[in-house]
């Protein structure tokens, strides 16, 4: 599966990454080079192998739904780029 520049732009958008027009040729070539390695997967006969999501076949541990941690919101907001009144601030979305 070979990617063209347009597809690479789409993937970049999905990943919220910006690729400058001047860099697109190189980015596409690099990704195609990597994908040609990955495409070898298609040649492997995996028969009825079960997809392996966890190396030890463990299931996700669940715990009771109750608050265990102290409220550290101030410490966590102190390192945020921009906050106000207990909120994380971003550029205005709705006028």
């Amino acid at each position: 599966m070979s990617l063209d520049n347009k597809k690479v732009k789409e993937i970049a958008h999905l990943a919220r990454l910006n690729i400058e027009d001047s860099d697109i040729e190189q980015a596409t070539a690099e990704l195609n080079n990597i994908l040609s390695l990955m495409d070898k997967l298609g040649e492997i006969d995996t028969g009825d192998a079960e997809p392996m999501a966890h190396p030890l076949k463990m299931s996700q541990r669940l715990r009771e739904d109750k608050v265990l941690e102290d409220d550290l919101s101030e410490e966590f907001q102190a390192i945020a780029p921009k906050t106000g009144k207990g909120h994380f601030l971003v550029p205005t979305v709705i006028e």
Partner: protein
Amino acid sequence: MHNLTVAKIIKGLKNKDFSSFELTQHYLDRIKNSDLNAFISITEDEALSQAKEADKKITKGDSSILTGMPYAHKDIFCTKGVKTSAGSKMLDSFISPYDATVTKKLNNENMVMLGKTNMDEFAMGSSNENSYFGPVQNPWDINKVPGGSSGGSAAAVAARLSPFATGTDTGGSIRQPASLCGITGLKPTYGRISRYGMIAYASSLDQAGPMTQTVEDAAIILNAMAGFDKHDSTSANKSVPDYTQCLENSINGLKIGLPKEYFSEGLDSGVEKIVMQSIKEYESMGAEIKEISLPNSVHAIPAYYIVAPCECSSNLSRFDGVRYGYRCKAPKDLNDLYLRSRSEGFGEEVKRRIMIGAYALSAGYYDAYYLKAQKVRQLISEDFKKAFNKVDVIMGPVSPTVAFDLGSVKDPVSMYLADIYTLSVNLAGLPGMSIPAGFSGNLPVGLQLIGNHWSEELLLNVAHQFQMRTDWHNNSPAEK
């Protein structure tokens, strides 16, 4: 003093041959005089006050064996109040508000953190050249890479800037730099050490471990790092044995498997020679050598380079410039904030892996890539299962070559191909080690040992017996 192992420092502190403060000051001086770029942060003030505190505890008798032990912490572990960058511009200003469980465990023993070590950005790389803070030099030859991603940790231990260091291994990031720098590195079974507060790259593969001079030290430090953690839902609720107890067991009659796929084309002849010499050494200790086959190990590279980027593209979506980390200047709207914060904050290799992951997980491609890779992962794991019915441990090279020149591998695919011998272990969740086995030219070569799930005691025993018969682990690079 800096050539002392962890085991010897324990004795020295107990016998009051030196104080933790003296020891800490000595290592800090060495770190400050080093040009290897092994550290991103040196935490001098904190270290000296931790050392004073430790000395008080030792005097009062209120101490553990590791109280006052200096160490270097990979900059992927969150450390409260100290910059935790993961080698990225994205987190250059991130002062962690909490401690990783590993950090907490080492703090609880009153150990002394000398600083945070350099690494490939978000642990993505095999040469330490992907760090925002610049490459690390290999102490054996400053024109060579130290390996990666735990390159700073490996270089620090090899150059005796710290008695031991922490590392993490997602596809070889403890074993490969340990091999290239001539130290001992252990990647435990997946789930043995908590991942809480360890900045995530690929969550189903990431595992922390010790990087030390000797196997005995690795056993001592694993004792301190291992154990169940309720904060990590993939941490195993399994008791932790005393890993130092089995080191002296005889390995007479041990069955060692050599996978023929690990000795095929691409393996440097100098590396092969050292590995085969080590196998001979084991034979002379009474071990039985068997050729085995791991037929699917040749598929480890495409399987890993799908699974890991997929998990990374998901994990790294949290870096959006909103809650912490880098935010671009004057974003014109929310999309611009996301786009520019991520594009300016991440380095090239990280962006490449995020893109591969985003593509492989996107609509219409999931079955062909991610699902297929998970099936191949199963086959790789089954190969090991079959092999461990016949042998006790598997041995082979860690890396196809010794340390290569800084800047010499420019093509990402060539860099990925060099991970061929380490990736399968992570895909199968097995424990693996690298121990110093000799030199090719002037550069160290590591021997890889792979064990079955939860066989760390046996692996450490087998590796320790080698170090009882050889002294490669006592070699250190010449000082300038």
